[in-house]
């Protein structure tokens, strides 16, 4: 085994100057900007749902959208904060109020007016398009976040992965509500809560391993 003084000497000789990370809020803003660009591109490509303006006048729908967007913003900030060693873990609570608004709104809607299947139903084609939106939104965002936060692998990988995936899930849910006419309660429940549960579950299971994998790659490159 190498002795500690030898290790220190070899680390010091191998050292190269590093660029300090920008403030976490700044980095979170950068990531959210990327999310906004992706949503804009998808809007150009797929087209906004036709009845968006009138739906936004309904308080329930507007509140749900607001909750999802706020959850995304706050969860992204929390993920970038918690990924640093000297920030408090209490930042993990930051998206909680927005998350509560978002999920309670969906729950309340399900309780009050349950629409089993919308007027036109859910065609297989629409489900496939929803799925395409889901993948196109979440995949680039997940990869970017993974690379941006790779150094957190040795600190709190699971907590960071959970926060990051919550942000991704919220953005994906927003995208789905923007581009697809999902009105049936079951569909809203599935595409919102289901997406969130799926991403957070995946992050809890594989987050640590993914971060370690990306960190290992970048270490080798250096």
């Amino acid at each position, binding site marked *: 085994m190498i002795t500690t003084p030898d290790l220190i000497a070899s680390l010091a000789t191998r050292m190269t100057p590093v660029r300090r990370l920008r403030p976490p809020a700044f980095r979170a803003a950068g990531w959210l900007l990327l999310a906004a660009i992706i949503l804009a591109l998808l809007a150009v490509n797929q087209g906004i749902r036709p009845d968006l303006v009138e739906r936004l006048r309904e308080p329930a729908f507007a509140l749900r959208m607001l909750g999802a967007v706020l959850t995304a913003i706050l969860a992204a900030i929390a993920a970038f904060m918690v990924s*640093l060693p000297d920030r408090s873990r209490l930042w993990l609570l930051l998206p909680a109020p927005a998350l509560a608004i978002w999920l309670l709104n969906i729950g309340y809607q399900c309780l009050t007016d349950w629409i089993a299947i919308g007027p036109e139903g859910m065609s297989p084609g629409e489900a496939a398009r929803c799925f395409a939106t889901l993948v196109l939104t979440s995949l680039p965002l997940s990869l970017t976040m993974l690379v941006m936060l790779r150094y957190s692998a040795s600190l709190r990988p699971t907590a960071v992965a959970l926060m990051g995936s919550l942000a991704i899930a919220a953005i994906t849910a927003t995208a789905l509500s923007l581009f697809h006419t999902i009105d049936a309660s079951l569909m809203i429940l599935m595409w919102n809560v289901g997406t969130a549960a799926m991403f957070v579950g995946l992050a809890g299971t594989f987050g640590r391993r993914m971060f370690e994998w990306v960190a290992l790659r970048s270490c080798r490159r250096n």
Partner: protein
Amino acid sequence: MIRDRNRRATPLRLVDSDERPGAHEVAPSARDLDWTILMARAQDGDRAAYLRVLQEVTPYLRSLAARRHRDPHDIEDAVQDILLTIHSIRQTYDPARPFGPWLATIANRRLIDRLRRQGRRKNREITLTLDHEAVSAPEAHLDHSPDRHELAKAINDLPPMQQQALRLLKIKEMSLKEAAAVSGVSIASLKVNVHRAMKSLRKMLLDRSEP
């Protein structure tokens, strides 16, 4: 958020000791200020500063590790683990914030990870006892038997009086009195003979092992 805004107003404040530390341990503030400056220089590529800060934090890391580990090897392993982590994420340090909490969080995370890993390994592995040996009888340990043959042969080469003294006193582990009663030889003679026997055995066996 408010704290961040305050910090932005006074960007040159290096240590804000009145604020909440991010972790459980905080180094004393004078030392902390030194480390902050050294670490900031190290990030810019100053090798000497980096060497010094790593050397200076090592005793502190060792004391943190000693709280959680007993075995000195474990402590040293843990310290090296922490040093490697510091090296790999040194870009996450912000010189506008105190160095102590940054260091302590990294150290504690690594130490806790190590303890968890050790705990998992302990649950999976068990120490072997005699019951786990396939054949526990001593005569079954074949790797010892060549030595036994050698010793038996060497004893047989000794003069008869020495052989008798050795067998009674060393192999049967009798006391001098018992051996004298059994063999009818005086105690003084037994002593002399066993002493000579041991001496010649030592000589014979050494000669054989060092050709």
